[in-house]
């Protein structure tokens, strides 16, 4: 018996430490299935004191570890490095405080994203970041990835909604980063921690901003006979200075898959693309923007623009979008979910080149993405048992990334770098840029024990 596991059982209850190979299988990967490694053990702390105790124990012995939320990550961020112990935060799932007066709430990291919005809905509030995985992913995971979602177009990413964090640092010390109701002094350690992909420590308590639910919401579904018409519409809406709450696009391949699945939303299957455009705010603002958006859609040749007539119809428009990844999963054994960003005015050009790249490699590509902020998800269905096909998928992915970077974009808009995109980092960052990141990491985790091997490509930087 591994003595480390023995002692971990001593620190927590025995039944909160998993170490049997068959129990560990679930924890070998996140939602990207081609990065896999078995952890040494998985522990389930139930309080910050337990997290700190486990971290201190492991760090004293130089054993690597990593936090894990729901494992819905799409960049391999929660895949253990060799010999790592996973600290699974799912059981720390209490909402500790709701303070409407100051529009804030304090939650434990394992709280499921949507549960928070549900808890405050009756009072007329919501928590804005809404990844499509929000019924499963944790707020701790969202903090680590600086997650986005459809409504981030108007409301911003996770970083815009986190006021403060209590963090167990990789040596077991507990610190408060950022404020807890007011501003904090000094460097913005809160902002630095958000998006650090589990490498700077473990968030054990998170103070978030709550927003008031907008009094009026209108959801439009517009369909187009060419991709160009749809993408030009997107660019034009943004250029007109309209800030929709969400502006999402699905192409023909995606529509076909969605409509053939349980998520069928009534999207026209003969359309080249549909846009879901949501406008929210005060009534007179929404009324005016809806009219302007409809005009822009029509001017670019939209075949039909439907305005959801009630909550049921609105939910249906969204169901297809939110279920799109799931629907794609059914098409083929595996799915390469991609994530890249381009300046939104370049959408028409870039999208057509993405189709050309896929075609060149004999692959299908299904696009479903946050068009309003230029955040693409060109997804490629494939069969992982066919190594030659996987190779083509990887080559096509790289070419798509290079294209987006050439157009002034980024290699990830919301899913993070993790293991999956580590090789793309040098496309956008110089050695000096990466070296600066390594130095920041060194401050939080001088020995590199917390989720090592992610984000920064090793061969480029001497450190780790």
């Amino acid at each position: 018996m591994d003595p480390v596991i023995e002692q971990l059982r001593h620190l927590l209850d025995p039944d909160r430490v998993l170490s049997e190979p068959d129990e560990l299988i679930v924890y070998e990967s996140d939602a990207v299935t081609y990065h896999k490694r078995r952890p040494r053990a998985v522990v389930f702390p139930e309080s910050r004191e337990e997290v700190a105790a486990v971290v201190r124990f492991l760090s004293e012995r130089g054993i690597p570890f990593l936090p894990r939320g729901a494992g819905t990550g799409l960049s391999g961020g929660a895949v253990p490095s060799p010999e790592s112990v996973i600290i699974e935060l799912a059981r720390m799932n209490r909402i500790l405080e709701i303070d409407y007066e100051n529009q804030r709430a304090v939650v434990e990291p394992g709280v499921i994203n949507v549960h928070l919005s549900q808890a405050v809905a009756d009072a007329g509030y919501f928590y804005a970041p809404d990844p499509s995985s929000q019924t499963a992913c944790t707020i701790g995971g969202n903090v680590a990835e600086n997650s986005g979602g459809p409504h981030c177009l108007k409301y911003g990413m996770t970083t815009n909604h986190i006021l403060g964090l209590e963090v167990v640092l990789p040596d077991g010390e507990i610190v408060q980063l950022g404020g807890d109701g007011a501003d904090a002094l000094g460097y913005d350690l809160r902002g630095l921690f958000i998006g650090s992909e589990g490498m700077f420590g473990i968030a054990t308590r998170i103070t978030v901003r709550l927003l008031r639910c907008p009094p009026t919401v209108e959801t439009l579904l517009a369909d187009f006979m060419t991709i160009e018409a749809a993408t030009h519409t997107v660019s034009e809406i943004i250029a007109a200075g309209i800030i929709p709450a969400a502006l999402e696009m699905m192409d023909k391949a995606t529509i076909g898959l969605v409509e053939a699945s349980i998520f069928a939303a009534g999207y026209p299957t003969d359309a080249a693309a549909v846009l879901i455009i949501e406008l929210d705010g005060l009534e007179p603002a929404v009324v005016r923007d809806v009219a302007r958006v409809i005009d822009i859609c029509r001017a670019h040749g939209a075949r039909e623009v439907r305005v959801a007539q009630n909550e049921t119809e609105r939910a249906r428009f969204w169901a297809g979008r939110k279920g799109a990844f799931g629907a794609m999963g059914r098409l083929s054994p595996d799915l390469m979910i991609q994530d890249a960003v381009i300046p939104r005015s370049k959408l028409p050009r870039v999208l057509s080149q993405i189709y050309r790249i896929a075609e060149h490699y004999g692959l299908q590509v299904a696009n479903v993405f946050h068009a309003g902020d230029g955040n693409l998800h060109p997804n490629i269905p494939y069969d992982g048992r066919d190594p030659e096909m996987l190779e083509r998928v990887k080559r096509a992915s790289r070419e798509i990334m290079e294209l987006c970077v050439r157009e002034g974009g980024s290699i990830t808009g919301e899913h993070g770098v993790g293991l999956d995109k580590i090789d793309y980092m040098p496309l956008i960052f110089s050695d000096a840029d990466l070296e600066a990141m390594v130095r920041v990491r060194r401050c939080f985790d001088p020995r590199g024990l917390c989720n090592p091997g992610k984000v920064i490509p090793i061969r480029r930087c001497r450190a780790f």
Partner: protein
Amino acid sequence: MYNELEAIVGKEWVRPGNATPEYTVDGVVPDVVLFPGSADEVAEVLRRAHEARWIVAPAGFGTGLDLGNPLAKVDVVISTRRLDRVLEHEPADLTVSVEAGCSLATFNEIIGEHGQWLPLNPPRPEQATLGAIAAVEDFGSLRLGFGLTRDYVIGLTIVQADGTIIKSGGRVVKNVAGYDLNKLFVGSHGTLGIITQLNFKLRPRPEVDSTYALSGGALARLEEAARELVRSELAPVALNLLPAGTVRRCWPSSPVDGSVLLVRFMDLEPVVQYQADQLQQRVARLGLDVSTVGAETAMALWRAIDDFPVDGGDVTVRMSVPRSEAFSMVGLIERTLSAADDVQVIACVGDGTIWVSASYEDTEFTRSRLVASLKALRRECERRRGHLILYRAPRAVKRELDVWGEVGATAGLMRALKQQFDPHGILNPGRFVAGI
């Protein structure tokens, strides 16, 4: 030193510190003031400074150099004012790249031609460079509606202490590649590197800007109104409480007596109108008066508020408390500072920021009494999980009261960052928190 620096930036861009009084750093006259013409020149200068251990104070126009703890000495001031070009404005993307030495006012004028703006309103936007605003994360009354600099910075170019140039972030509005180093440099007060270029995301400029004054009740009544407003569907971009004494200073022509709660809306015309109507109804129920502040008056009034205080008091402090505590703090401030002269208070009751300025007769006695009051107020802020900083103060006051206050357990992390990014401690040493 002179010759070396002239070789890097050119003879005409090196000035002796005693010939450039605007670049005196909180009472310390630097040896030289430099005006480099490119990021590469800044890099070359810092490389030399790093080797030679020259103490460097980064600057823009030099108008904010007294913010922070005083420096013991300054060898070189590096001003970014020649780096003032708007490099790439992509109106269709609402993004822009701009050099650090461009003033906020000029910048907003240029991008304003496309109906866009960077919705920040720190004091004196004509005299504040974007680099400096980002470095100190300065802000004004519009924070409630539009947030902070950090919410708009999507990318930075930084010259590090050792002269290497790095970039953080990028040029797109959504980006999570790598750690978010933008957040490290924004608000770092020039202690980690010199910002030479910034990429921002922008906002469409609102059509209409209207201000309403609520008055005619005790503070408690105004508090009730403020509470109702932040709980309502209305979205004021600024919500400022001016106690009676401050109204007399900032708004001498005010038609009303007593304290005033200012409410500002910016949006499409019908949306502002709708909110104004709603405001009337809600406030009438509370028995308060609402008056529309005419456009010109409002402009002057906001200018006075944002350039706070009127006629520059001796000491200006900025507090941050949870907004539910803002009104009770205002009462406390007035009681605590009752012995000081010309106390002005502006409370941004939507976000919990409170500005206070006071003057004192220059004697040992009155000064230490003021310092004692400020210490008491700092404790009150800290008790409310907030803080108080000395925003502007004479060195005599700074000697008795740390500008920032305690940062607690994170001091170690912050010092480690400083050590990693400026190992020789040449950039603004001692200016920031925890001796950084």
